[in-house]
Each structure stands twice: as C-alpha cells, then as structure tokens.
C-alpha cells in the first residue's frame, strides 16, 4: 500500500495530466518541473550521451503532450506512464543507432559528489547524496541475480527473453527475479535509516 503522502502526489499528478490532456500548457510546465530531472536522468543513464539524452527528453515530452488525452489512471500511475514513454523513446533511439547501451556496474557513479548536477543547493545535494547512499545500501541487500536482472530490465534495451539469454537463466527465473528485485528494493527503501 502506498503511503498517504505518496497517494496525494499521485492524485496531483493525475490531475495535472488530465489538464494537459485538455491542452493546459501551465499544467504541462508543472509536470515538467516535477519529472524533468528524473526522466532526464533516466535518459542519461540509458543512452549515456547528455546531448542525445536532451533531444530524447524533448521528444518524450512532446509525446507526453500528444498522448495525455489517452492516459488511463486505472492502468498506471502518471509517473510510470511517463517513464514508459521515455524508456521507449530511448530504446527506439538505441536500436536506431544499433549500439548497445553501456551497462555500467550498479555502483558506478551513483551518489558521488561529482555526479550531482551543478547549481543545486547544498541542501538539495546533501539530500540527493543521502538518497543515493540509501539506494546503494538497498541494492546491496538484493541478491546479485535479481539486481542484475532488474537493472537490465530498467536501463537496457533488452527484452526479458534477451535478458534470460544474457544471464543464461530460464525466462521464468528472470521474470521472478525482476519482480522480486523491485519488491525487495521497495521493502528495503521503506526500512528506517540504518
């Protein structure tokens, strides 16, 4: 069950997305201010090149504007819906350039001071650093197979069939790892700070 504050945020975003679907440019700007950074970070993680990631972010937000009228809140949270659009945009791009993404190890870059965007406040940087540290600890608690399957499913263009070949595991095992990996990550992140 999602905590109440999270539910409020989801409701707010669903309301904004409904307004975007009706052509409300101000609501679109508000969603961009919420999602711009995490979705740009996702694009950078997937395609590595910042310039390409910027172009793909733009493409994705144009799609968000166009497809907002078709968003169905019964099927997904607004952020998941937007994540899917960005991910598909990145995957289309990666397939076009016929280049496998760089599959960096989980620990690489996460939470280091120089990976934080310049211009953030000291407080914001500290919070981001704390989040990243928390994530690192959470990921460390997930068994390696689950962690690898989860990261490949999230950030590469591989399908779960391809992940199963890549990891030399049955498809059923990979499906289970992906689901368990997400749940374990969620459970660990919800634990009180150690």
């Amino acid at each position: 069950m999602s905590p109440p504050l999270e539910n409020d945020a989801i409701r707010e975003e669903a309301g904004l997305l409904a307004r975007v679907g009706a052509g409300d440019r101000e609501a679109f700007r508000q969603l961009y201010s919420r999602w711009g950074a995490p979705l740009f970070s996702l694009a950078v993680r997937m395609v590595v090149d910042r310039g390409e990631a910027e172009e793909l972010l733009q493409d994705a937000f144009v799609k968000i504007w166009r497809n907002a009228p078709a968003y169905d809140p019964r099927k997904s949270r607004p952020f998941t819906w937007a994540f899917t659009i960005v991910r598909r945009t990145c995957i289309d791009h990666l397939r076009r350039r016929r280049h496998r993404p760089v599959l960096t190890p989980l620990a690489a870059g996460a939470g280091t001071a120089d990976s934080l965007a310049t211009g953030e406040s000291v407080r914001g940087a500290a919070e981001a650093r704390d989040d990243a540290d928390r994530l690192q600890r959470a990921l460390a608690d997930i068994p390696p197979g689950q962690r690898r399957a989860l990261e490949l499913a999230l950030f590469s263009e591989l399908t779960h069939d391809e992940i199963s070949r890549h990891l030399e595991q049955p498809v059923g095992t990979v499906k289970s790892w992906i689901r368990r990996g997400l749940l374990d990550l969620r459970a660990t992140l919800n634990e009180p700070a150690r």
Partner: protein
Amino acid sequence: MKTPFDEAAGLYVLDQLDARERAEFEARLLHDSALAARVRELESALAERIRALPQHQPPAGALACIESRLDGERAAGDRAKVRQFPLPWASVARWGLAAVAVLGIGIIAVQELRRGPAAPAHPVLIMVGLDSGRSTFAELPLNEQPQSADGRFIQLASLAARFWEKPGELPAAVVSGRPGSRGYALFDPGSNEGFIGIQQLPSAGQGQHYHLWMVDTASGRIREAGILPLKDGDGGLYFFSVPPAGAEATSGRLDFFVTAEDGTAPESDRPKGKVVLGDNRI
C-alpha cells in the same frame, strides 16, 4: 497463491511485456483489485529507483525548446503534401514533346505554390541517387547564377524534368545498377525545395503511406518532406519542400529516404516505418 499475472506484474511495470501480453494484463488489471494493489506497490519501487539515480538537471532551455516544438506543430497542422507531376517514368520517352509540355505546365503550377521570393546564395544543387538499400550523393554546380529565386527554381525544375525524361543523363555517381525500386532526389539547399523521381516502388500496404524524409548526416536532424501520393502507379516525379533549417544551419551531407508509415498511427516528426528507398538510417 501467486498467479501468472502476479508474476507478470514486474514485467508490466517495467514495460517488458509485448503488446498482446500487455493488453491481457491490463484487461485483468481493471477487474482485479489485488493485482492492482500489487502493481501500485511495484510502481512505487520503480519511482524510487528512478528518483534515486544520479540526478542530472535538464539544460535550462529544454522546456522552451519543447514548447516551441508544440507551437510549431500547431502551426503546421496543414502540413503540405508532396505534389505530383502526372508522369510515369517509363512512358515519358514515348510521350516526347507532349510530355515536355505537360511538365512545363506542372512546373508553372508548382511555381505558384512556392513561398519566398528571395534569391538563395548556395552555388550547387544536391543530387542523391536512391535504391532499395542505399543512397549515393553528388553535387551539381549551377550552370549560371540566377538573379532571382524564380530563375533558380526554373533551373532546378528543368534539370529534374531533363533527368526524368532522359534517365541516361543522370550523373553516373547517382545511378543504381541494382534491380528494383530506384529514384533520385534533386534538392536546392538555398530554397529548401526539390524534386524526387521514383520508379518501381511497390504498392504501399493496407493503411500505409510513403513518407519522404531528409536527413542532415552530420547533425542527424531529420526533416519530413511530406507524403508521396502514390496510388495505383509505381512512381512518378514529385515536387517537395521542407521547413527551413532555422538557426541550426545545414552542417553536413544531405540524404533522403522513403519510409512506409502506418497511416493510422499518431503523426510523428520522426520516421517509424520501414525504409523502402534510400539508405536505411533508422
């Protein structure tokens, strides 16, 4: 007890299901509150994972660029279709003078549809030969520097007509030796106008349209030149124009290709369909 749908929930959230599996899952999701709760839980984990990535702020002007594109799309609602000269390639030679006269009328008609009177400065025309697997590039110097945009257009159109009428006069660099679909694009980078001649293109599939695209190979920027109004015939000679490059001036070789796009899909400023003519760049 865990169901196959529970097992698929993680794949659904991570967009790892194919279209059929996704549709089945969503149909179930609408009526299964336990499954919906499971999905919400996984979505929360996904959101946390994404927000915990090393955060990069998008460049300051990114939102303005997006809004500018949205404004541009609205303004371009009446996107131009490529206009066709009613001449099948193979029959032109037999038509002789009559065909030349029709072509002349076509040029005048297209001239009236053109925009902008300014005389462009580029001293060359771009020529790209196309076949089903590749494209070849050549530059054609203008015989004389026209004083007006109309004069330059007449030169462009006359060359297009000549090559259409006498394919044997095409520059050797752009002639394909391969069997099957082929053609050429003749483009004026100064006016962003051009002609494309196509031969032996198979009929588009049900609900599909052929789209012509232009790509700047250095920047990768793609501009759509329009929809080829092919119906029963397998080709023709077409006039097209593309939006100006704007501040982002052409920086590399220009190339052209034709894709078969799904006519029922939402409009896109990027090619999605299979490349049927020219270099496969997508």
